[in-house]
């Protein structure tokens, strides 16, 4: 290699180095270390960590709380994802139209996204307070009795779902809004000339043209639904009776409350595998049906 080319290569690598170091130190090394840790026991006091093969995974399969968290998470995902996406799309279509106060509405819908998670959770804790919280006060107007929303096994998870939808819908709306503005207005006019109604146009033109955005939003929504932890810590701490324990919260509990790091690593590996599978499936299944501009 000539000196000039060598220098070009050297410069290239030097420029990449800072980013590469950061990625290696904070992404790749921890990821590989986690996978390795899941095959070892947790070191405790005088007992060092030893290789245990698949023992951790076996323990996981027999762990009822793991299954509870997985069930909760599936229920949580299956409700938050469609609700969030539908609401985001609805709001985007609405604020994209010609209505009075459009900039104000856009801002209003986006506000929940800007608020810090912990602040949001605290506000909602107050809404759900039995008796004098906002929810009970409103229901009280209709003569309904007070209810311990977050303290009840049957309503606690639903409460978290509502908060998540409320928080994420505005964020996803922004993506839909951007995509809607990419659709040339002549398409609507051309359809109007043919007599296509609003719903027909939405179904045959707008929605298919939004599919790339929907895929993007869907993958983000799936990831979001599996990495929720802050709301739970503030609002329910996984209770009552693990009714609101989701996977990541359970990992947090195992790792940093019970200090069973090897088991936490095992759970993490399973969560990552699950997410990778979902993302891959979405891409392979949906990508072929999507029209990209």
């Amino acid at each position, binding site marked *: 290699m000539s000196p000039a080319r060598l220098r070009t290569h050297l410069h290239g690598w030097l420029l990449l180095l800072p980013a590469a170091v950061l990625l290696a130190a904070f992404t790749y090394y921890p990821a590989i270390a986690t996978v390795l840790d899941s095959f070892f026991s947790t070191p405790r006091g005088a007992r060092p960590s030893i290789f245990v093969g698949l023992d951790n995974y076996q323990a996981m399969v027999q762990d009822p709380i793991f299954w509870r968290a997985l069930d909760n998470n599936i229920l949580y995902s299956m409700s938050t994802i469609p609700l969030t996406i539908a609401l985001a799309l609805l709001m985007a279509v609405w604020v994209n139209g010609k209505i009075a106060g459009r900039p104000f509405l856009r801002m209003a819908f986006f506000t929940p996204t800007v608020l810090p998670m912990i602040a949001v959770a605290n506000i909602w804790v107050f809404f759900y307070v039995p008796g004098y919280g906002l929810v009970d006060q409103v229901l009280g107007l209709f003569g309904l009795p007070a209810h311990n929303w977050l303290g009840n096994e049957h309503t606690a998870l639903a409460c978290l779902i509502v908060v998540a939808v409320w928080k994420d819908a505005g964020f996803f709306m922004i993506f839909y809004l951007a995509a809607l503005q990419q659709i*040339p207005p*002549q*398409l609507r*006019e*051309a*359809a*109007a*000339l*043919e*007599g*296509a109604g609003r719903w*027909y146009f939405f179904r*045959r*033109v707008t929605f*298919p*043209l939004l599919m790339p955005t929907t895929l993007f939003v869907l993958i983000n929504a799936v990831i979001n639904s599996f990495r929720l932890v802050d709301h739970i810590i503030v609002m329910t701490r996984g209770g009552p009776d693990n009714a609101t324990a989701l996977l990541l919260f359970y990992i947090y509990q195992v790792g940093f409350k019970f200090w069973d790091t090897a088991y936490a690593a095992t759970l993490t590996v399973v969560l990552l595998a699950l997410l990778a599978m979902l993302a891959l499936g979405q891409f392979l299944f949906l990508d072929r049906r999507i*029209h990209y*501009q």
Partner: protein
Amino acid sequence: MSQISVRNVSKHWGVMAAVEAVTFEAAQASLLVLLGPSGCGKSTTLRLIAGLEEVSDGRIFIGGEDVTDLPPARRHISMVFQSYALFPHLSVAENILFGLKVRKTPKADRSRRLERVASLLGLGAQLERKPSQLSGGQQQRVALGRAIIAETPVCLMDEPLSNLDAQLRAEMRHEIRTLQQKLGITMVYVTHDQSEAMSMADQVILMREGRVEQAAAPDHLYARPATAFAARFIGTPPMNILTLSPGDDGTVIAGSQARILSQPVEGLLLGLRPEDVTLGGEGIAARVLNAEYLGADTVLTCAVGSQALTTRISGKATSAPDAAVRLAWRPENLHFFDAASGHRRDDVAAFAATDPGGSTQKRLA
């Protein structure tokens, strides 16, 4: 019978009048061109006819029915947009069939009509492709197909050829005209290109700043422009408009001795088409400023007094810049306009001097 009648229609955006008191009629199965410079309100007029915009004032009739308050879908029209407005995710066939599907036309009928339109436009091999996989000309054809498959009596087109290259434009121009005549469609065609208007139109509506400047057939528009604006807008190179000034014994081209009228008249403009000016012989004296060689002919710009005059001569001009030449024309090719209003003044044509140079030359009758 007139198929489309636009009566005293205005459109205001706030205080700005995009279209002001526009009136015209399009005869059945004719091609009417809305012509004018960019921003003069052609598209707005077309969109008013389509019902995509609401009129501020006036009425619009299509097929004898007052459609002013009807939605676009009930006006029995089709439209081709400048951007084509094809649905990017649908195949060519789906794009063309879009309207028929909306109206739930029976399947057998749909495929019969699709086949006919595809063969008419030569799109048979492209039916399964997406618009992004087509060339500009093919996309244009799809847009055309979507308009004619509806079999509506009226078709509106907004600068449909402006995104095509020059050669394709000439081809499509011919194709659209043939199609319009073959199918007997009443067409309103918007363009800013006067050559497109001249070659296609039965009737041209020349617009300027939201108003109708002149409504006439192409040959009439060329032969008798109603205003100096119309005179300059039609023809390439555009008509010469020279300032005249009253002289000692008649009216002359400003700054020269070239006598145009035998009577002195104030505030007059002279219009003279470059192709009506001939070089040599015993015309008026002029000095060559610049020669632009175009192949078949040369556009020669000459100075006459304080005015510049272009002439179109066939072949390659031999006159070099600064050469002295003589320019001549026939009196019947002179057009006179009022300098203040721009309106045509035929009343002064009777005074046209037969000896523009002021000499006693005799020219071809």
